């Protein structure tokens, strides 16, 4: 299992489109990926509505967990994805 943390920089937080992009990106990997805001309940990162319901705002910390065969690659690429999109 791999975990990464990221503090949201985007002034809008995770609004609808970034939530969609995040879910799409997560869908590329075989491993289970969950995302939580700070110590809140984790949701499946591959599901846009769940990610939207996090209502994550700028300055909040995202905790992502990767569990499965390609977890190393997924975690590494997600670090980049978060930096670029959020």
């Amino acid at each position, binding site marked *: 299992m791999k975990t990464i943390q990221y503090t949201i920089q985007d*002034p*809008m937080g995770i*609004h*609808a*489109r970034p939530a*969609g992009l995040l*879910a*799409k990106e997560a869908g590329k990997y075989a491993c289970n990926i969950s995302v939580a805001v700070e110590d809140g309940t984790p949701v*499946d990162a*591959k*599901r*846009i*509505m*769940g990610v*939207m*319901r996090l*209502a994550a705002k*700028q300055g909040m910390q995202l905790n992502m967990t990767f569990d499965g065969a390609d977890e190393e690659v997924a975690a590494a690429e997600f670090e980049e994805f978060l930096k670029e999109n959020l």
Partner: protein
Amino acid sequence: MIQGKGTAVFAGIAIGKAFLFSHSAGELPVFCGDVQKELQAFDSARETARQQLQLLFEKTKQELGEEQAMILDVQCMMLDDLDYIEAVQQQIQQGRSAAAAADAVGTVFSQQFADMDDDYMRARSVDVRDMAKRLTAILSGTNAELEITEPVVLLADDLSPSETVQLPKDNILAFVTCQGSTNSHTAILARMMSIPSLVQAQIPLNSTVQGKTIIVDGFEGCYYLDPDPDTLAKMQEKQKTAQQKQQLLEQYRGKPTISKSGKKVKLFANIGSPDDVAYVLKGDAEGVGLMRSEFLYLGREDFPTEQELFEAYRSVVEQLDGKELVIRTLDIGADKKVDYFGLEPEENPALGYRGIRICLKQPEIFRPQMRAIYRASAYGPVSAMFPMIASVQEVLAVKEFCKTIREELTAEAIPFGEVALGVMIETPAAAVISRELAKEVDFFSVGTNDLTQYTLAVDRQNEKLAEFCDTHHPAVLALLKMIVENAHAEGIWAGICGELGADTTLTEEFLKMGYDELSMSPAKVLEVRRIICESEE
């Protein structure tokens, strides 16, 4: 006959067949008895919905721009949401039809968004519902796209932006909606199209009204469903009179606006988006006196880029083909809030962080807009005016800012033209110091709505205060007189772009005061021109 009231958004009479725009038309199909078949139907409906949304995305992008279209892209992504899909599949396995399951789960999900604390996410519940209704409609065999083949009066509980954009506008005589405000998408569209319409209407929406005759009276703010012969005859007469009046106004089309004593007035139009230029030309306005640029910032999730703004402004300039265009810079804040600006809630938004105050404090917002305005000026006449000015210092700061923009563009070898810089006079302070302001700018445009509310200390959003909101108050008229006198004393022109600009009971008074320009809803131009041409002033 059923009779009821609503808030009128455009004066006029429409008589036609009622067309019930229902998001869920009638009964949903029942379970066919085969789970596999229903599951397959659900999958193929998602595919059809995706194709519809993609087409609609392209259409919207062309008509309203990419930012409006993004809503549809998000809906496309929602079609693939596993939470939604699995919940629907589960219901189908329990013996529900695909249509009923798609609808029920959509309602649950949209309610979850509606219950959230976050304004932005709450607003997304409409998107979830929009997406689910589309699937339900496909599965019920009723096409989600409207099939209106003859002129109708459109009745709806409310219309979402995605519904509004796909309406066959040529066949709509009037809108009647139960929800919506006078600032809703539908109301703005109705005013631009000059069709009598009601929002906040108290009207029963069930299948029995479909196809019945309905009369919408946009003068009185009421409707008559299934009217008795007497009412019908009376309203046909009223419609005829209104049409004849409009017909008489046609002789003023293309005529110069000059009073009998030779006073010339420019009659301009107020618009919100590039699409509205069609109505400017149809209404025979002589230019655009107020382009409310904030509409390009609404209904989207992030700031428009300089390029998007530039393209919108250039499109207006090119369509106007040499006619003047006055763009008011961003007037966000107060009653027009946008989530991505991250504005904090305020005790007194009307007296708060809005208009030029935001632009001066956050140049990163102001810069792309001013650059876009200057760049558009290379294609035809463009003026810029600044809202909510209350001091000379603010004007000096804005002028300095514009100078920097010109220097930047020159350094980058980007072409731009002469942009006249004016201010909105809408605070009593600006009116009182208008002589000093006039020394610094090229023109004034009076925003009578705000000037009235600030002068009388009456909140115009508060319906209880309607009787105290005397738009013809002597204090307001005295300020209007003073503003134009001060403008002329310093050799600049002055106009009016608030609601009073179209108030025909004051047109002669404005002429007497010496106003050089009146800007109004495009549909009012011919009527005001008639008054000026007939005036002895």
